[in-house]
């Protein structure tokens, strides 16, 4: 047999098989890791194998339909964020015929006009894929010519609009003119700086004497004391009872903070199923105080009063975060919108059904089940692992999976640990390291020690998972994206509680200061407040911008 025969005999069928193999993976199911045409942007890389999340258009749809469908998928996840920020350039603004001339330059109705995925060569901060001076497209001529209507802007270049700390394209909630004027002249720090919503929230949970000293590991020492502290909140005053023997507990209650008076139910008749260390952790937790027992999380499907055998039969050794979500809906919802938990967002496409794909190509029911199963999408981890992160992370944290327990610890349900120690046990960047020893750290220590009022301390979570008020309740916004980039998004919900607007704008515009975790004073000064004041005093001003 000649080499030609061997070559063609192998290569031609090989190429055909390879083509068919990849085509089947595209249409039916299977690993598609070889398909992305370029690196996915940060955060989105977590969901890049759930292609249909963004590529929602039908196969072979036209370019316009594909872009429209993709644009819709952007809004599935980012709509709330934009709405909350009072988007300065909402898509609807550009729908009118009068905006046609601007749409020709940038079709701002579409997210993809500025944010194109899989284009690492042109992807800038904030996943922006247009040049930094994109404002020039609309604000350089006519009635929108900012240099004409704002003499103060006459000598500015357009690449500084969004990079100098003055404007953002979407979120200007802390940068618009009236707001600047209103907050002008405030001191750099309030006389009694306290983050109000944190103060309300922490007042009910922080133990007196809990201390956080130099390193995150030491934070653990404060946790053991918690069960013996009494909170001013009623639900936190319940002292957990010791676990009773299963025989003594004929009825087993189901979990759920809002619905169930946990305090009165027999505590953990299934406690014999758990380890003593876990039980100790639980005993000091808010769950124990609220009467949320083992069965509530480990056997959530068991009805109240079920016999022990049924509990054992339905016992889940490691409950998923779905169980947490049953009671902590706002937290779970925001967690799924953030970078830690976005794989659990309801808009993320589910793995494809190979049966449907096979039907689409005329092989439905033809292939044996085992072969059809071979075309199934590989199982996707529901949780992000530290190893997958693109930010600098500690090597020893790589295997950690980001579920509720990763930060709060499953049985201790520890919000103090989650506020700092959990972050620092994974994140290993300059900003995180610089927090220890910073003024914010000192305040946090003082608050934990009871030497400062609740809300005075500034933990990682204070800024990056700001507490927000929702329907009369204070909840922790687990979507750090809401206050992350551009960092001016942090000013209103976080910084202004303690600092003046001028200081906050300057501090956030100073990248070195941010990296040093605000040790020192800003070395840059953004003049937007002064300019706003000057313009406010001008009787001929055109109006708020």
């Amino acid at each position: 047999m000649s080499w030609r025969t061997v070559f063609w005999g192998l290569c031609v069928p090989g190429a055909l098989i390879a083509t068919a193999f990849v085509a089947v993976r595209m249409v039916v199911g299977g690993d598609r890791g070889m398909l992305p045409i370029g690196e996915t942007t940060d955060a989105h890389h977590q969901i890049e194998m759930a292609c249909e999340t963004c590529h929602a258009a039908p196969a072979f749809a036209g370019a316009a339909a594909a872009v429209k469908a993709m644009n819709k998928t952007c809004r599935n996840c980012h709509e709330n964020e934009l709405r909350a920020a009072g988007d300065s350039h909402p898509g609807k603004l550009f729908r009118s015929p009068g905006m046609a001339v601007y749409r020709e330059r940038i079709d701002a109705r579409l997210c993809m006009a500025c944010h194109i995925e899989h284009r690492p060569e042109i992807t800038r901060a904030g996943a922006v894929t247009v040049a930094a001076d994109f404002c020039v497209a609309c604000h350089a001529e006519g009635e929108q010519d900012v240099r004409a209507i704002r003499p103060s802007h006459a000598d500015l270049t357009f690449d500084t609009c969004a990079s100098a700390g003055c404007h953002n394209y979407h979120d200007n909630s802390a940068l618009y003119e009236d707001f600047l004027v209103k907050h002008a002249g405030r001191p750099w720090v309030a006389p009694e700086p306290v983050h109000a919503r944190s103060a309300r929230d922490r007042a009910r949970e922080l133990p007196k004497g809990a201390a956080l000293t130099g390193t995150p590991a030491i934070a653990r020492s404060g946790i053991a004391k918690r069960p013996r502290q009494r909170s001013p909140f009623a639900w936190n005053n319940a002292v957990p009872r010791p676990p009773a023997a299963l025989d003594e507990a004929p009825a087993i209650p189901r979990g759920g903070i809002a619905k169930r008076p946990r305090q009165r139910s027999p505590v953990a008749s299934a406690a014999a199923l758990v380890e003593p260390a876990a039980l100790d952790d639980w005993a000091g937790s808010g769950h124990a105080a609220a009467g949320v027992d083992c069965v509530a999380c480990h056997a959530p499907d068991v009805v109240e009063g079920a016999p022990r055998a049924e509990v054992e039969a339905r016992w889940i050794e490691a409950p998923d975060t779905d169980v947490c979500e049953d009671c902590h809906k706002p937290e779970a919802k925001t967690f799924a919108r953030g970078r830690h938990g976005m794989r659990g967002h309801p808009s993320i496409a589910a793995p494809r059904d190979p049966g449907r794909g096979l039907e689409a190509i005329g092989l439905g029911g033809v292939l044996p089940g085992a072969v059809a199963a071979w075309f199934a999408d590989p199982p996707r981890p529901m949780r992000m692992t530290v190893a997958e992160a693109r930010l600098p992370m500690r090597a020893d944290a790589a295997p950690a999976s980001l579920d509720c327990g990763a930060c709060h610890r499953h049985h201790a349900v520890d919000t103090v640990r989650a506020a700092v120690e959990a972050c620092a046990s994974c994140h290993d960047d300059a900003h995180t390291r610089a927090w220890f020893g910073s003024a914010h750290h000192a305040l946090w220590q003082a608050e934990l020690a009871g030497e400062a009022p609740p809300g005075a301390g500034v933990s990682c979570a204070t800024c990056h998972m700001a507490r927000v008020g929702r329907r009369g309740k204070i909840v922790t916004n687990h979507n750090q994206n809401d206050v992350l980039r551009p960092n001016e998004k942090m000013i209103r919900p976080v910084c202004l509680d303690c600092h003046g607007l001028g200081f906050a704008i300057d501090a956030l515009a100073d990248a070195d200061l941010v990296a040093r975790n605000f040790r020192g004073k800003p070395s840059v000064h953004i003049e937007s407040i002064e300019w706003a004041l000057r313009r406010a005093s001008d009787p001929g001003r055109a109006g708020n911008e």
Partner: protein
Amino acid sequence: MLTFAEELILLLTDEDGALLPIQKDAFECALAGAVLMDLAFAWRVDTDPRALVVTDRTPTGNPALDRILEKIAVRAETVDTRTWIRDLSIDEADAIREQALAGLVESGVLEQRSGTFPWAFRAPRHPAVDGEAARAIRLRIGNVLHSDDVPDPRDVALIALLDACDILPDLFPVREIERCRPRIEQLRRMDLIGREVAGAIADIDRTLALAVRSRSARFRRLLLHLSVAGALAAVATLMAPRVPIPDRFGPTFFELLWFDGAWQEWSGYGLLGFSGAGLVAALRMKVRPVLRSGTSIRWRLAHVGFGLCCVLLLFGHTGFRLGANLNAALMVSYVAALLSGALAGISTHGASWLRSMGMAPRLRVVPMRLHVVALFPLPALLIIHVLVVYLY
């Protein structure tokens, strides 16, 4: 007795029945010259500096020779030998080859075997029945080159034919040919044939050499330059720094070229089209039954031209960015195919230079095979790339 064309084919056929990898244009000119030499030996044509004329229209009994004789006879205008060699090499080389092969099969020197896999892309092969005839011809030529005996006029004519078409280095070691160069020159000056025939043969030989050199030199130089350009472009694809995208708003040319969907679509279609055209041109060179129009040199020129266009469009489509995953595999396959193709072009059309460097003629086969190896995944990767674009 075998004709010159038959002897030529026997010499250039390997034991598997495939032609040695020689210059196609030289081979085509050699076939045309071989027929004219046979006609001259048969006293049917004569030449002078301005014309090749038929002196006797009586058929020779050999269908291939008689067909060419008739063609020369019926031509209205009188043209010189060079024109006939050019025309016959372009229009009749395939037919002469097929008839010579048929004659050799009929006379039991060669046997015909159907093409090996893949059948659609392989012409029938003609291996020698026992190889004796080819060995005899080689022995005759060797004896003539290495002795001072008076040679047979047909052997002299055959050697002159092979030398004129620059085929001798493909049949014998280059050093041996160089050592025999004085003898070859002596043979070409010998007046061993009847005066009239000698005049015609010498004229055909001289004209053939000129025709081969001028035709092949012109095209070889062009193809060599194109191949070098292609190789440089392929290397630049890998080595050259990427053209930066300016951080200024506005539709810059390169940004449109590389990141605008419509432009990318069209450059992609263009790339696909030129790749397909290059494949057709390559098939035409290899698979005669598929397409019979045009000459191999033109198809080769077209193939190289399409390859160069692919490089340019590749730049337009990707900015020579390798991309990721299957896109990177596609780019690697493209660049490897272009680079190996360019090297094959350089080795084929710079054969004399390679010979002067002491490289064996068969070394030319290596980049050609690499070209095929690099090309085979290309259609699959292209199909997948197009599917990815339109499915996602």
